[in-house]
């Protein structure tokens, strides 16, 4: 019995020893080594939902990260990407980010995470003083010193939406449907102000828990409100269910709908999305040289269909990080963090510039086509994010 206990104790101790020695790198925040041929290597973490309700974007996010690695290689930087799954759960996100910081010694973390998961991840990144770029934005997070949102803010999106629907389309009565996320409550507040300022009014709103499979009651509310347009911010897989129900309800579908989160449907556009208005920082039909090159690279990499918006947000997150690394002239996480202010990248979606821990960028209004693309019907000038963060 004593021998067994001793053996068990030795095995447990050996396990912890191996776990503690796991991962590579020499010190916190300094994940650089020379890659083959002497090109600098940046070790970064990439956290997203590979499971759970937010996993709809995982495949295209991963493809975008691979494209970003290839583009980085062409500009002389080797990216060593440590991937993690937050399972759309804050507790898991915290563990994953902690491991990336403490064991893998990444110099930055790029995330495609919901607010709660991103906030949990920040427990690790803020302590290590490394940049955390969240490709879904920073809407519900507020101003955090090391966090940068790489997606449109509510101010940018709702201003564009309100101007388009109220002033250009003449739709004065707007109904809002959204997933119950902190960002969406901010979106509704800002949309209300923007619509009122444009001369319209919000005639009703409805929130559904993330993971909903039935929007019947929401559609009933839309119809009984007398709305002449619906603005929806239904996230993840829920957006497909919502728009499917919307399109098959003949009375509801007669009301113009504009979706703020571009639905992820894989390679082919589902028929029920045809004609849906969308507001996004990117569509594949954006007309510029960088996009033409990017689309060719995307297809050459074997990706079916066009790159979706979330892929561009991941791509730009990586490119902005590389810009900061090159500006810092150092591969230490804290130095890269200090160089994040004002970095800019001109790519397939136009020019994005860091501004108050978010990005100044142009937005596009598109209309979904039958062939899986969206025709761009309006392009804005680069819009300020509307965030005010000191430092």
């Amino acid at each position, binding site marked *: 019995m004593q021998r067994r206990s001793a053996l068990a104790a030795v095995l447990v101790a050996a396990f912890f020893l191996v776990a503690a020695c796991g991962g590579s790198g020499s010190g916190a925040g300094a994940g650089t080594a020379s890659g083959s041929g002497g090109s600098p290597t940046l070790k970064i973490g990439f956290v997203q939902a590979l499971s759970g*309700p937010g996993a709809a974007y995982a495949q295209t996010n991963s493809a975008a990260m691979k494209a970003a690695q290839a583009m980085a290689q062409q500009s002389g930087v080797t990216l060593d990407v440590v991937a993690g799954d937050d399972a759309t759960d804050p507790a898991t996100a915290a563990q994953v980010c902690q491991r990336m910081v403490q064991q893998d010694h990444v110099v930055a973390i790029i995330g495609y995470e919901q607010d709660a998961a991103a906030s949990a991840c920040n427990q690790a990144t803020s302590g290590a003083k490394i940049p955390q770029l969240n490709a879904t934005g920073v809407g519900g997070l507020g101003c955090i010193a090391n966090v940068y949102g790489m997606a449109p803010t509510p101010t940018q999106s709702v201003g564009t939406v309100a101007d388009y629907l109220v002033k250009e389309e003449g739709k004065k009565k707007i109904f809002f449907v959204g997933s119950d996320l902190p960002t969406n409550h901010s979106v509704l507040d800002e949309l209300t102000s923007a619509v009122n300022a444009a001369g319209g009014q919000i005639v009703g709103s409805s*929130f*559904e828990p993330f993971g909903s499979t039935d929007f019947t009651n929401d559609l009933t509310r839309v119809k009984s409100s007398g709305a002449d347009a619906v603005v929806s911010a239904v996230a993840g897989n829920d957006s497909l269910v919502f728009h499917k129900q919307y399109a098959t309800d003949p009375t509801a579908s007669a009301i113009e709908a504009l979706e703020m989160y571009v639905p992820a449907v894989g390679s082919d556009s*589902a028929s029920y999305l045809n004609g849906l208005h969308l507001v996004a920082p990117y569509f594949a039909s954006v007309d510029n040289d960088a996009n033409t090159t990017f689309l060719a690279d995307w297809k050459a990499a074997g990706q079916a269909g066009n790159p979706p918006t979330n892929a561009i947000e991941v791509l730009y997150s990586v490119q902005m990080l590389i810009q900061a690394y090159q500006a810092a002239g150092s591969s230490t996480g804290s130095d890269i963090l200090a160089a994040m202010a004002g970095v800019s990248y001109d790519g397939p979606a136009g020019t994005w510039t860091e501004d108050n821990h978010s990005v100044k960028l142009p937005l596009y209004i598109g209309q979904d086509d039958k062939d899986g693309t969206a025709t761009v019907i309006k392009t804005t000038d680069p819009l300020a994010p509307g965030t005010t963060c000191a430092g």
Partner: protein
Amino acid sequence: MNVLVGAIGSTGTIMLTVLGLGLILGLLNIINLAQAGMMAIGVYLTVDLVGSGWSFWLAVPVATVATGLVGAVIEYAVVRRVYRRPLDAILATWGLSLVIVECIQLHDGSAPKDLDPPISGGFSLGDSYLPTYRVALLALGLVLVLVLGLIQRYTTLGLRVRMVMSNPALASGCGINTTQVRQWTFIVGSALSGLAGALLGPISSISPDYAQAALIPAFLVVLLAGNLLRGLVIASVLLSAVQTLFSVYVSPLYASVVVIAVALVLLRVRPHGISRAAA
């Protein structure tokens, strides 16, 4: 009218979801946490078959049978060993659900899939719209409950199942192969789960963690139902009505919480369920 339409829609989906679960939990006393995984197998097989050009109505029965076969393998390899160990059964079936999700993700990826409803059109009732397909799901759910009830009540097979459920030792002493009865019960339960998954695909988003969100309400319905099949219908209607009432008049955000609260109160009042056969 809004409440009626909403309740009709959600009763059908809940009833289909709980059939397989109720069979396995009610008859085998196994909390099958692989229920959502079975539903996912059913819907992904249907998606693949329809994508290959099969008719939806042909793909569904094939997917149902295939899920039953998967259930047969799982029963033989795993579940058979934990019939008398409920806690181990929970762990085992939970592990199976994780394996199923990962296998689906490896085979089909994480991007959502889509199935068009095989029946189009619907009924406008005031400001509400009830798709014909949802009415069909409710009707199908009721028919399945009726058929299962008739089998259980009036056939030799049903008699054997009830004997094994009531007193396995005595049933075995009477010459009934209890292992075979349990095996077929699990297979049929798995097939029903696959059927539910396939039928609910056109009105749901299809991803590797398909139907995970439906597990908790489904377990509540099964616990509330008691040991009679009509209890499944009553419990499904009751919880759907509560959920819809709160969604319409208060907020969808609190509806799930209220459903759980109501279920807890009912279980406190009737711990053995709504409907229970006399001892």
